[in-house]
């Protein structure tokens, strides 16, 4: 098509790009927004059902005002009101999921398109230099605003008041926009989409930990965290919106930075140039297994750093749990009354280990899905066209995913153990937390096996393996709150692993999980050997 288009505009055809994105990603967009709204809406309704009277709320305010819960959820504000409980119970984990939505969408729409080479085609058309970036920003902004409106409506439907509901909904919108802006910047820095996700994700993890420590100690560290900023809007607890204005100003500055970076770099390049590689391969790079290790060693190191950071953060507040209980005899009595026998510290550490292991399951899935991505990217083709059997090719990725899972769990356990041992002075915690974390190995292997089974038998939906860990996450975090039936809770492999060190070790669930993993993995491999590749 020839003809005139409006000048040398940097934004020419932004509207067309927005339409193209929405048409292509409409299902992805709907699933993200719908899932988060569903999570918030059901949690709010469940909270209301859980605490029908003021007396219930008063008891809950005491019970939930514990540093462990605060570390996971956020600042304890107005916990004796329904709104305060809703905001607290939904808390930081769901905010993190909303931020992940923005990170993954922006990364995919900007650097992902560029790395795949599709942006080159788009930019060769009469499309403004900034149009793809602005279009991505507009789509993700619209996603966040839609998310906010639906959350506000869901909360109003629960019977909560307007101002608090809008404020709480704005927490999601503003946090999403901040991390959309962060990802716009990281996508300019590196030419590698995964690294752009990684940098933004690392910042999200740091934000979570900073606000966990800050909220625990009621101190200023929360103000270094974007999650802390939005939670300081105090929904249903004396709302104030100026933290939103602050967060949005930071986001605007980041967007400006990204736009400036974009004009200073070439298409396809990052601001940080890639280093040259080796002219010849190391002698060891001669098998599919060596290739799988070579491809994923950075991923393993990244996840180890992530779980180590989380483990150290959770471990380091162990001591505060004891102190908190000392100062709150009322809470201690309540916990003793609720039974269990285990000490508060042990219960806390068991929960923290389960959460860090859940994060580690992210590695297991990312790793095993190489089986599928190698196939769809056609990189499996030259390997399978050489004298390498499908079995040997698949085994390489299975070994790396399974062994990497053990490494990630070991690092997580040692991190929690060492930091808990240092803060409490109980050296035995290192070995105990190491064992506690490694006991999740069979659970992670089940996720690896799910990835193999889907890649082998239902390759088109292999990426759905992520949904299984999302379900496990929801079960672990919200089973009690949502009062899920036991059969649903039992679907999560994590719920079958004994809560070490609060509970004793048991072989039966471990063996059962290993059997499930072996069956799923075997079925997947059989499927891979008999179907068409590519």
């Amino acid at each position, binding site marked *: 098509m020839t003809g005139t288009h409006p000048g040398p505009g940097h934004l020419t055809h932004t509207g067309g790009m927005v339409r193209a994105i929405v048409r292509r990603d409409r299902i992805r967009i709907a699933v993200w927004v719908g899932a988060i709204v569903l999570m918030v809406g059901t949690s709010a309704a469940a909270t209301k059902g859980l605490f029908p009277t003021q007396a219930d709320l008063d008891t809950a305010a005491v019970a939930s005002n514990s540093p462990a819960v605060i570390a996971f959820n956020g600042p304890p504000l107005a916990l004796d009101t329904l709104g305060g409980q809703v905001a607290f119970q939904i808390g930081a984990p769901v905010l993190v999921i909303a931020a992940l939505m923005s990170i993954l969408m922006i990364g995919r729409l900007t650097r992902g398109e560029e*790395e795949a080479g599709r942006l080159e085609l788009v930019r060769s058309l009469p499309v403004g230099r900034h149009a793809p970036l602005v279009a991505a920003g507009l789509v993700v902004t619209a996603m966040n605003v839609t998310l906010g409106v639906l959350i506000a409506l869901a909360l109003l439907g629960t019977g909560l008041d307007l101002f608090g509901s809008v404020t709480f909904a704005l927490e999601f919108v503003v946090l999403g926009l901040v991390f959309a802006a962060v990802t716009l910047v990281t996508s300019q820095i590196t*030419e*590698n989409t995964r690294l752009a996700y990684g940098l933004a994700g690392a910042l999200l993890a740091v934000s979570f930990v900073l606000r966990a420590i800050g909220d625990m100690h009621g101190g200023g560290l929360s103000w270094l965290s974007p999650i802390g900023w939005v939670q300081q809007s105090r929904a249903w607890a004396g709302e104030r919106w100026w933290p939103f204005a602050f967060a949005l100003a930071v986001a605007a500055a980041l967007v400006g930075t990204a736009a400036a970076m974009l004009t200073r770099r070439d298409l*396809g390049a990052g601001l940080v140039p*890639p*280093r*040259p*590689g*080796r*002219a*010849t*391969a*190391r002698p060891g*790079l*001669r*098998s*599919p297994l060596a*290739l799988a290790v*070579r*491809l994923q060693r*950075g991923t393993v190191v990244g996840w180890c750093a992530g779980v180590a950071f989380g483990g150290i953060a959770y471990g380091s507040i162990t001591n505060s749990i004891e102190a908190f209980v000392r100062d709150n005899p009322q809470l201690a009595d309540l916990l003793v009354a609720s039974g269990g026998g285990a000490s508060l510290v042990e219960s806390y550490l068991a929960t923290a280990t389960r959460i860090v292991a859940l994060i580690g399951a992210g590695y297991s899935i990312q790793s095993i899905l190489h089986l599928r991505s190698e196939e769809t*990217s*056609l*990189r499996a*083709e*030259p*390997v*399978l*066209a*050489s*004298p*390498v*059997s499908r079995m040997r090719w698949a085994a390489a990725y299975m070994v790396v995913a399974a062994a990497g899972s053990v490494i990630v769990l070991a690092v997580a356990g040692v991190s929690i153990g060492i930091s808990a041992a240092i803060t409490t002075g109980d050296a035995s915690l290192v070995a105990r937390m190491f064992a506690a974390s490694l006991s999740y190995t069979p659970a992670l292997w089940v996720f690896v096996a799910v990835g193999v089974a889907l890649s082998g038998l239902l390759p088109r939906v292999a990426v759905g393996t992520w949904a299984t860990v999302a379900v496990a996450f929801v079960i672990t975090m919200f089973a009690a709150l949502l009062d899920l039936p036991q059969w649903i809770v039992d679907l999560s492999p994590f719920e079958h692993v004994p809560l070490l060190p609060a509970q004793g070790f048991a072989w039966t669930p471990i063996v059962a999980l290993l059997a499930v993993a072996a069956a799923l993995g075997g079925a997947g491999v059989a499927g891979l050997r008999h179907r*068409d*590749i*590519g």
Partner: protein
Amino acid sequence: MSTASERSASPAIEVHDVVKTFGATRALDGLDLVIAPGEVHGFLGPNGSGKTTTIRVLLGLLRADSGHVRLLGGDPWADAVELHRRLAYVPGDVSLWPKLSGGEIIDLLARLRGDVDERRRDELIERFELDPTKKARTYSKGNRQKVGLIAALASHVELLVLDEPTSGLDPLMESVFQECIREAIGEGRTVLLSSHILAEVEALCDRVSIIRAGRTVEAGTLAELRHVRRTSVAAELARAVDLAGVVGVHDLVVDRGTGGARIACSVDNDRLDDVLRRLGAGTIESLRCSPPTLDELFLRHYGEGQVRG
């Protein structure tokens, strides 16, 4: 392992009446392809005609629904690993691991096949002017293609399976590729060269198979195919001659000038003698006859406007 004499006795590639469907799509619909050992065989067809699907069946990545497929005397699905020791493959769009360098990938693929001739590898890297230290992420299409070609050509295998291997290469590199293939021919290797670049096939191949919509429409030597083709004729004449309606004359264009005329047409080869006599009657001032090209072959099989897919 079969002996050399056994190999030469049976075709290197033998495909008969192969059908492969993907859902409702019939990608291969009774395809035939026979390649003798030591032959360089051009595999021609527009995009979507089934060339890549055929090659994937030959590599054991896809299983044919029906029909007979033999590769180097074995079954490509059941004996994939053993057969792959004896062949090298270059896809049409070489997909590489973004974080590995070109040099690492060349070595890896060669080692997976079992033999690395380092001297030959270094020589090919030089001839193709590839920088092996760059990460694959930063390679252009042409450079990715070079990585695939070097990895395949550096090995001493008996069969090269090349699926549009020169897409993205500049003309200089294309001539390096042709040199390398001629060397491979000299070493007695068998080559399956899928292409829609006709000059490349004309320059290299002994025999060609032309496929369309998953079916072989023509197979034979280039000479055999030329036989049924037409010759393009362009002439300037002192006096106009009327060729309209003459048997064997097609696509006639007449440009009458002052006194003389320019005539362009295509002529069936068996009517050439008659047409040239008629032109002579108008006193030829200049004459250009071009032999049929594979371009025209394509035009004839696929109709105008569909060439070069």
